[in-house]
């Protein structure tokens, strides 16, 4: 397997953009990325698109060649990857695998979602379709409801407090306020986080990521060719994608995501590092409880310690293990299909030292964790400076 590097990155602002369609968002991110990698569309060997529910949100299907052609990319494989909220993480994983295997040299990976064109109940219904339609969804479960049930159980088993969940929201809002690409740039207090409008007990709107429009893109190439495209290549040191069953009711313990644990172990092994060596991370905080569980599944803390670790300030940008310095899905926004690649873009920006006001002091080894649905897909990536 050849070493693989990220040689270009680009993303759009995340937010609610009534005058932008899916294609224009994907094209903006893709163009910025190609410019960053100093290549023409005709040089791309394959185009991978991460998108969760474009056909449901927008009506357009056959999205990969549709978006690819709009970017000027034709005559090459153009394929869409769908893995719920890990759609573009999955696209990135497969792009890295195919370059590592020597099948392609230059692969452009774009993640995109256009969500704000639908009403909140319709958005809830489309998102819920990433869960088990025959059981959970028919019983009336929404995605917030699934994570609310995870939170309830985590609180019951480990004594995690409502305040610990709020501490995730407060931190990520403070970080997002400094991120020019973030959907919501608003600092909130712990009191505000606790007093949010209920969505699914114990989660309030302040515990939930945002319904957003947006796109992100990365260009990958064999490390041996990286200097042709950039002076700051970022190496994919470790990466893994894993799967699990969809229904929560079929899991032995819903307070952990076995797919994340397994993906993390594989990625750590591939990179030859352990969780203690990771300097910073972008994790999948679709809900505040998900960040707490991620800290545990990634091995940053022991089982049950994610809540106190957060409330103690350990995951602040100034703490020993900064998590979601970008603002995370909570504040940056969560255009579902764009999230996995956006996380890669954010880790790459930190490693290159180009994160502006968000720049962390230690930034040579970063981790991205992308979760699909309620844990049926997980992608964990370790990136480091070349």
């Amino acid at each position: 397997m050849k070493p693989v590097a990220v040689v270009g990155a680009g993303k759009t602002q995340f937010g609610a953009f009534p005058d932008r369609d899916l294609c224009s968002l994907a094209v903006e991110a893709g163009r910025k990325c190609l410019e960053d990698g100093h290549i023409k569309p005709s040089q791309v060997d394959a185009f991978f698109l991460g998108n969760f529910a474009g056909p449901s949100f927008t009506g357009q299907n056959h999205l990969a060649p549709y978006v690819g052609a709009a970017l000027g990319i034709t005559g090459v494989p153009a394929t869409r990857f769908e893995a719920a909220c890990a759609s573009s993480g999955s696209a990135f994983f497969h792009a890295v695998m195919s370059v590592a295997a020597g099948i392609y040299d230059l692969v452009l990976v774009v993640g995109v979602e256009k969500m704000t064109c639908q009403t909140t109940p319709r958005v809830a219904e489309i998102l819920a379709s990433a869960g088990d339609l025959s059981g959970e969804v028919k019983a009336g479960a929404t995605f917030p409801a699934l994570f609310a049930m995870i939170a309830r159980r985590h609180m019951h088993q480990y004594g995690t407090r409502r305040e610990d969940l709020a501490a995730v929201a407060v931190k990520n809002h403070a970080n997002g306020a400094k991120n020019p690409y973030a959907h919501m740039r608003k600092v909130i207090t712990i009191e505000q986080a606790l007093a949010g409008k209920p969505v699914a007990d114990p989660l309030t709107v302040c515990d939930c990521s945002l319904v957003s429009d947006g796109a992100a893109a990365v260009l990958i190439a064999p490390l041996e060719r990286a200097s042709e495209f950039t002076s700051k290549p970022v190496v994919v040191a470790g990466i893994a994608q894993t799967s699990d069953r969809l229904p929560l009711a079929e899991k032995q313990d819903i307070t952990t995501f076995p797919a994340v644990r397994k993906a993390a172990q594989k990625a750590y092994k591939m990179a030859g590092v352990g969780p203690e060596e990771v300097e910073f991370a972008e994790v999948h905080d679709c809900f505040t409880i998900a960040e707490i569980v991620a800290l545990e599944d990634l091995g940053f803390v022991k089982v049950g310690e994610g809540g106190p670790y957060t409330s103690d300030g350990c995951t602040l940008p100034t703490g020993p293990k900064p998590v979601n310095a970008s603002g995370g899905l909570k504040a940056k926004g969560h255009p579902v299909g764009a999230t996995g690649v956006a996380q890669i873009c954010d880790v790459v920006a930190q490693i290159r030292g180009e994160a502006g006001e968000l720049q962390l002091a230690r930034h040579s080894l970063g981790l991205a964790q992308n979760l699909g649905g309620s844990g049926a897909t997980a992608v964990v990536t370790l990136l480091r400076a070349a």
Partner: protein
Amino acid sequence: MKVYTETVVYSAPEAFVKDAPYQIAIIEKDDGSRVTGRILGERVAIGDEVELIELRDGIPYFKKASSR
């Protein structure tokens, strides 16, 4: 049968907007297997005993077991 975990849904998907707020739960059966269903009547918490009322469209509806 008892409650493994639960939540009250306030923000409902299109099909259930008229029911909101409503409680759903994962119920642990006596053989250890679990199922996701709806709770009717009094709210339940983790550990509470429940009993099956009926199946509607394949989904089990439960209520808090009457204390004896």
